[in-house]
């Protein structure tokens, strides 16, 4: 496709596939099997054929599907799975990694270049893994006069705060790590942590450019938090709840963006500013203040901040989906799970597998996840797009925008929501 593509040779391709298979096997033996063993210690073992499994017994039986599937099912019901894998960190990190790849390829297409190409054979799909390995292997340099404990802690705290944000997002009915009644307030609380962590990192580096960047980040985040919170009040007033799962469930017939478009627009713009995305990337403006508050971070400390940034990006996009685009609601696309698998079992060659209550991922859950991911990816696309189109704004223009126009529009949105409530369009006896 491109002039810079190397010549394709089938023999070399097959040889490289064998190499990859070897390394996959090595990784599985060295990392995968110990990890499985550790997981088996954590989960509550099911009773199969009248005998209670111990972790060691379960480990020896892993090759037998009739015993493996109940163990996997038991693992999926644990909180550990929720935190680690599906609605929690693993799912978010996967989407964040996909975001980084899509961002790089999309921007490259926009800018008439190729983007990541060599790493991973298929359009540079493993470029991120390569970058991660590079960051891990680099030396971490701490400025001599830095406040070392705080400087070390800041990137970790950043990732922790972003992960806490991810934990509050409901992905499908019942699939949320922390289903709290004050969910939206929790979101505000978590967002409030980011400027503190940023200024801690910037100040503890004891260097001029990070300090200016940190002050800029503080200005930006604090002044945009107010329109951010105000723009969400409309949704809270209409639904009458702060629980994010209930807010998502309330949009089964239509998403709130239909009634509150101004709120959605204000939230989207403030979201860009909170995420420090172009055109609001002042805290990292490279031509003015090198890399802003990230200047003195090196090696994996920088990598952790980037990971936190993209987790935050996913979480904000997901929050937009939950509040304005209807969350997991959408037409049913997934075909129903055939009932005879549960009653008769699956015949795979010589084995007939019979597992009562097998589909832990129900039809509703799979469909909800599909719609949620589709909508989130759409929102992420629109978050990425301004990077190819806009230059950076200036501090005074940014603060002017935040304190006058966006707060005004957020109030307009609140009055629209009030009008809808009092006119009886929404709420009891209305459309809902």
């Amino acid at each position: 496709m491109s002039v810079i593509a190397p010549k394709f040779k089938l023999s070399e391709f097959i040889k490289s596939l064998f190499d990859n298979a070897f390394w996959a096997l090595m990784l599985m033996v060295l990392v995968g099997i110990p990890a499985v063993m550790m997981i088996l210690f954590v989960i509550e073992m099911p009773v199969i054929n009248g005998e209670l499994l111990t972790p060691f017994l379960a480990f020896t039986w892993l090759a037998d599907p009739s015993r493996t599937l109940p163990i996997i099912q038991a693992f999926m019901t644990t909180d550990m799975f929720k935190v680690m894998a599906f609605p929690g960190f693993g799912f978010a990190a996967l989407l964040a990694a996909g975001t980084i790849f899509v961002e790089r390829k999309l921007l490259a297409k926009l800018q008439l270049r190729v983007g990541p190409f060599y790493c991973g054979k298929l359009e540079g799909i493993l470029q991120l893994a390569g970058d991660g390995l590079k960051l891990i292997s680099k030396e971490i340099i701490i400025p001599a006069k830095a406040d070392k404990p705080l400087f070390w802690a800041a990137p970790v705290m950043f990732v922790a705060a972003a992960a806490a944000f991810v934990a509050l997002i409901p992905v499908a009915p019942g699939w949320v790590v922390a289903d709290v009644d004050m969910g939206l307030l929790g979101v505000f609380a978590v967002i409030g942590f980011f400027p503190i962590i940023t200024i801690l990192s910037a100040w503890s580096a004891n260097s001029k450019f990070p300090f200016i960047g940190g002050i800029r980040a503080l200005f930006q985040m604090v002044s945009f938090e107010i329109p951010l919170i105000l723009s969400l009040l409309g949704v809270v007033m209409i639904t009458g709840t702060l629980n994010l799962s209930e807010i998502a469930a309330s949009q089964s017939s239509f998403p709130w963006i239909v009634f509150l478009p101004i709120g959605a627009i204000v939230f989207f713009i403030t979201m860009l500013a909170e995420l420090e995305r172009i055109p609001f990337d002042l805290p990292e403006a490279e031509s003015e203040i090198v890399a802003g508050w990230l200047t003195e971070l090196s090696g994996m400390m920088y990598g952790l901040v980037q990971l936190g940034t993209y987790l935050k990006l996913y979480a904000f996009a997901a929050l937009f989906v939950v509040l304005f685009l209807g969350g997991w609601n959408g037409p049913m696309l997934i075909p129903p799970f055939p009932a005879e698998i549960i009653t008769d079992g699956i015949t795979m060659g010589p084995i007939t597998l019979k597992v009562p209550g097998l589909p832990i991922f129900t039809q509703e859950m799979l469909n909800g996840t599909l719609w949620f991911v589709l909508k989130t990816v759409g929102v992420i696309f629109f978050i990425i797009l301004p990077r190819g189109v806009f230059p950076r704004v200036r501090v005074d223009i940014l603060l002017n925008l935040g304190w006058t126009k966006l707060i005004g529009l957020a109030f307009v949105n609140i009055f629209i929501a009030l009008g809808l409530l009092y006119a009886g369009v929404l709420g009891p006896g209305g459309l809902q």
Partner: protein
Amino acid sequence: MTNELLPGLALQKVDERIMTLNVGPQHPGSGHMRIIVQIDGDYIVACDPDPGYVHRGEEKMAEYRNYILNIPHLERPVIHDSCNVLYPYVLGVEEILGIEVPERAKYVRIIASELNRCIYIMYWLAIYGIFLGHSTMFMWPAGDRELLIDLMEKMTGARVTHAHFVPGGVRNDLPPNFEDVCLRQVNYFEKRIKEYAAVFYDNPILISRTQDTGVLSRQDAIKLGTTGSVLRASGVDYDLRIKEPYDAYDELDIHTNVMTEGDSYARSKIPWLDMIESCNIIRQALKKMPKSGSVRVKLKPNPKGKGFESVYKRVESGRGSLGYHIVSDAKPEPYRLKISVPSFRNLIALPYLLKGEKLGNMPSVYWSLNYWPVEADR
């Protein structure tokens, strides 16, 4: 005996509100120089440009080489504008040696110099884009520049440092079929750069950022001795291609781009308009150029000047008026060679423009001065 210290080391009265920033030389927004900026909050109270990190002694080197050997190293200060940076030297040497240039060579020089002006401005524009955080405007000009670089490669054999102009004409004749290729590529190039308006020059965020920042009034622009796009952005209609036409420029119909605002936006837009004008000039030159004939007068080996005489020649380069003062001494080498560079003359305006500006305006004002650090140091 003065006890004056270097700019960065000078002792200053301590004010707790004022923070001194060393922007450069290792800073993504400085180039090969240092700008010592003192800020009070977000406002710049004083700015002290500190060039000199890439001083290479071009003028002294020129005194030890003969007129022909001087050609390759004199284009090094601005390799992206190598034809224009060599142009006045070649004109001056021709006057010293008393050579008349063939008609066709004059047009070939004009085509090469205008193509090179576009190549330089594209590079400048790419950096201006990335200085404002607009990564698309970095990639597009850097990519479209390749069109013209390929053209120059066909013409001169080198992609960047051409060493194409020699006293008495140009080094080689144009390759066969060059006129058609050149016309086609220049037409496409013009169509392409006109698309930049939609993504960059008409962008509301760019306009809000650069308009009314670093305003240089007409009087100040003349007083400070600025030149080129900076001068024309402040409302002074001054273009050496029209005021002091050299080679065959007086036979072409050239339009000067002038804007009266004098702000960062106008200074960034003038070079872009210049590129469109350069495309017009190239088309005219291709039409008027004699289709055949010699492009070079054969020189004697190691040519000498006639006696003690001095010549000053200047041309309109990508950044403004670029002059060479050549003193000859009846020897194969010049007695003295002095380069008057536009970059340094434009840099002088920087402390006046940045005083009282916000820190966020520093990159846009600094790079809008059409300044090339290596050229200023020579």
